[in-house]
């Protein structure tokens, strides 16, 4: 029991002890707990991370394999495509080569065959010659037309193969030309005959005209009431046909023999008027070879000259009013047409000519020559001037000189 009592006695102590111990531990408990948690969390973290790392590694392996598989698949595809295009390119290039050859051959053979074209043009020019020849009405055109027409018929179909494939109309045209050939020739022959007939008729007419003229010329051989003409022989039963013709013909009036025109001055060039409207032309002039009138008249040529002399405007009137403007316009147009560089082209051979003119010192100084007498006649002393302006030089036209020798008057003539 003692023990119990001892124990009981000690129990308070124990309780205190317990309390103290606990309270002492309590002080570290939180810390230790935290530490334990930390340690555990670290450890667990490590484990989990290792696990995750493991998982990741595994996933990477899986993905690597899968992606590699996919990539290889894709690569195969690309390679296949690439190979295909390469093949196609090659085929295309080869096809182009073949087509090039073939097309060139075909075009040269059927469309732009040089020799064919040459032959065709030759045939065309032959036909042209035939056409030109037979229309002059020379002769038969059979054989000429024949072979050229035949050659052209052949050509008709082929010079435009593309066109003729496109529309059938040209086929029709080529088709009907074969039976038409004969008819063409008939028509042309008919034309030639007609031409010949016309020619004959024209010949006859010409002959007739000639004979008529002959009859008119020989009209004086017509028999009169008293004397029989040479074509009307009294010993014959009926008169010569020429007699009848002479009866019908009108006598030819003999023309007056032409009087030789004697003219000292050739006035025709004087009579050429400057303007067609203003004055009569020379062809309606009265006959020049008229007899000289009796009386104190001037020579007829002189009178006519005076009457029909051309208009002679003064210099001032002869020029158009806007001459300067027109000249400028002309110059501008010329410049536009010529279109030449501004700096001149100066060859060496004439280099010395291109030197700039250097004026004399004397003439270039401002104390230079006096302008009195060459430019003006004013008094040198300005105080004597009446007005400030310079005098204007006016030169009236000297009528006496411009009309000298062109009028009847001999006043201005110096003998």
């Amino acid at each position, binding site marked *: 029991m003692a023990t119990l009592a001892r124990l009981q006695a000690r129990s308070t102590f124990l309780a205190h002890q317990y309390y103290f111990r606990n309270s002492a531990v309590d002080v570290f408990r939180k810390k230790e707990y935290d530490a334990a948690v930390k340690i555990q969390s670290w450890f667990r973290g490590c484990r989990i991370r290792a696990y995750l790392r493991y998982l990741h590694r595994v996933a990477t392996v899986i993905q690597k394999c899968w992606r590699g598989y996919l990539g290889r698949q894709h690569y195969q595809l690309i390679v296949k495509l690439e190979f295909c295009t390469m093949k196609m390119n090659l085929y295309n290039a080869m096809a182009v080569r073949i087509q090039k050859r073939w097309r060139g051959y075909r075009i040269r053979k059927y469309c732009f065959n040089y020799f064919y074209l040459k032959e065709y043009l030759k045939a065309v020019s032959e036909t042209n010659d035939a056409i030109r020849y037979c229309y002059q009405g020379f002769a038969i055109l059979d054989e000429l037309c024949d072979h050229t027409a035949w050659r052209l018929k052949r050509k008709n179909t082929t010079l435009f193969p593309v066109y003729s494939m496109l529309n059938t109309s040209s086929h*029709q045209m080529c088709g009907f030309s074969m039976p038409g050939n004969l008819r063409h020739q008939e028509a042309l022959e008919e034309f030639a005959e007609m031409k010949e007939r016309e020619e004959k008729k024209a010949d006859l007419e010409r002959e007739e005209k000639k004979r008529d003229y002959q009859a008119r010329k020989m009209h004086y051989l017509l028999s009169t009431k008293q004397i029989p003409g040479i074509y009307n022989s009294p010993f014959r039963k009926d008169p010569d046909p020429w007699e009848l013709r002479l009866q019908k013909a009108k006598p030819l009036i003999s023309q007056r023999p032409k009087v030789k025109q004697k003219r000292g001055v050739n006035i025709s060039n004087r009579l050429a008027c400057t303007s067609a409207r203003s004055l009569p032309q020379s062809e309606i002039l009265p006959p020049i070879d008229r007899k000289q009138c009796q009386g104190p008249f001037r020579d007829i040529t002189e009178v006519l000259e005076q009457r029909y002399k051309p208009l002679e405007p003064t210099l001032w009137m002869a020029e158009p009013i806007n001459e300067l403007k027109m000249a400028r316009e002309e110059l501008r147009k010329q410049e536009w047409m010529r279109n030449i*560089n501004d700096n001149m082209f100066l060859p060496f051979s004439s280099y010395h000519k291109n030197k700039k003119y250097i004026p004399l010192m004397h003439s270039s100084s401002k104390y230079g020559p006096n302008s009195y007498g060459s430019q003006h006649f004013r008094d040198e002393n300005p105080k004597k001037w009446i007005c400030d302006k310079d005098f204007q030089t006016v030169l009236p036209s000297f009528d006496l000189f411009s009309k000298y020798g062109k009028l009847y008057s001999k006043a201005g003539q110096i003998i």
Partner: protein
Amino acid sequence: MSQRQVLQVFEQYQKARTQFVQMVAELATRPQNIETLQNAGVMSLLRPLLLDVVPTIQQTAALALGRLANYNGDLAEAVVKGDILPQLVYSLAEQNRFYKKAAAFVLRAVGKHSPQLAQAIVDCGALDTLVICLEDFDPGVKEAAAWALGYIARHNAELSQAVVDAGAVPLLVLCIQEPEIALKRIAASALSDISKHSPELAQTVVDVGAIAHLAQMILNPDSKLKRQVLSALSQIAKHSVDLAEMVVEAEIFPVVLTCLKDKDDYVKKNASTLIREIAKHTPELSQLIVNTGGVAAVTDCIGSCKGNIRLPGIMMLGYVAAHSENLAMAVIVSKAVPQLSVCLSEEPEDHIKAAAAWALGQIGRHTPEHARAVAVTNTLPVLLSLYMSTESSEDLQTKSKKAIKSILQKCTYLPALEPFLYDAPPNILKHVVGQFSKVLPHDSKARRLFVTSGGLKKVQEIKAGPGSLLQEYINSINSCYPEEIVRYYSPGYSDALLQRVDSYQPLAN
């Protein structure tokens, strides 16, 4: 008063009427009398005489009216306003052939002036009676009726359609087959007038089978008939390819070329017009013409006449050459180019010159070969002078400019190009220099010649804006030559060289 005296009065009246009408008809033949007659009120006096009991007076009155109406549009209008037409139309069906002829003459004289007057005739219902007259036995009546119908149809498509609707075309085609030349002539002219307006009208004429009959008459010796026949065929052929092929299928081809040699100028003109109308449609038709030697015939025809008669021939050459390069070559082979250049320089009229310039442009635009053929005939300077001349019309200027451009762009024949360096304006110079820049790099002889003839010097003188096409061409020409020679020929070089001499210090000192 005996019966004789009474009758004498009537006889006198009738004589007076006859004399009056005859005198008026006679006076109406002279143009100077017309105004006096009009002022004297002749219309109102003639109108009752149209209904006279005596047929001679009726006819002569109609004749006088026709002559008056023929004179001018005002008088024709007076006839319409005087309500004379219904009377005429009424009696056209009833009376004898002389009256019919005179009445048809009045209708023709009225209808020829204007579409309105022709419409007035149609409104009176004259077409049906005129068509009935076409069936008449007498050729004179037929002729007059056909003439009137032709004049009515001439104005416009509606009037032509009215004539066609009246059923005139088959009868006109029958008229062509009659033996009388005058009737044939007028019927052909009427068919030409009908078919000229539209493809449909031409088709109706073709459907009746007119072409075969017309084509047969091309060789007829009468030149006036030939004129009308050729004009009718060309009016039919001008509308469409089908119609032109129909005309060609009537075997006109070598035959119609004979007409180009005819003495009559209008036959020539109409024949060239027909060929032109056919040639303009398709290359095949053109080639058919070329194959039959048509181009040579047309060329000769152009050479043998003057003025407007040449025009269709010139245009035909242009159309043929425009279709393809082979055809253009055929035109060149037919020696058409010298003829065209003669036209270009000889003709006084601007429109013919313009046509010739256009045709030359069409010939020369295909290949260098073609351009050379045109250039050797020395036409380019003529074209240039026409383009530059202030007297030539605007159309001629544009046409010649186009022709010059299209020829120059193909031309590699340098001797013909060289004069252009000296006197061409910049817009044409561009093409000339361009051609030089294309040819010179490949031709050493030409390069040498270009220097010795002074072309290079001229090229250096040209003022060209920097960066312009012209400058590019000049640069490419310069790049074919060594630098010294280019510099030697460039302006201002002598100065530069002498300056260098001045500034040069000899090494010896």
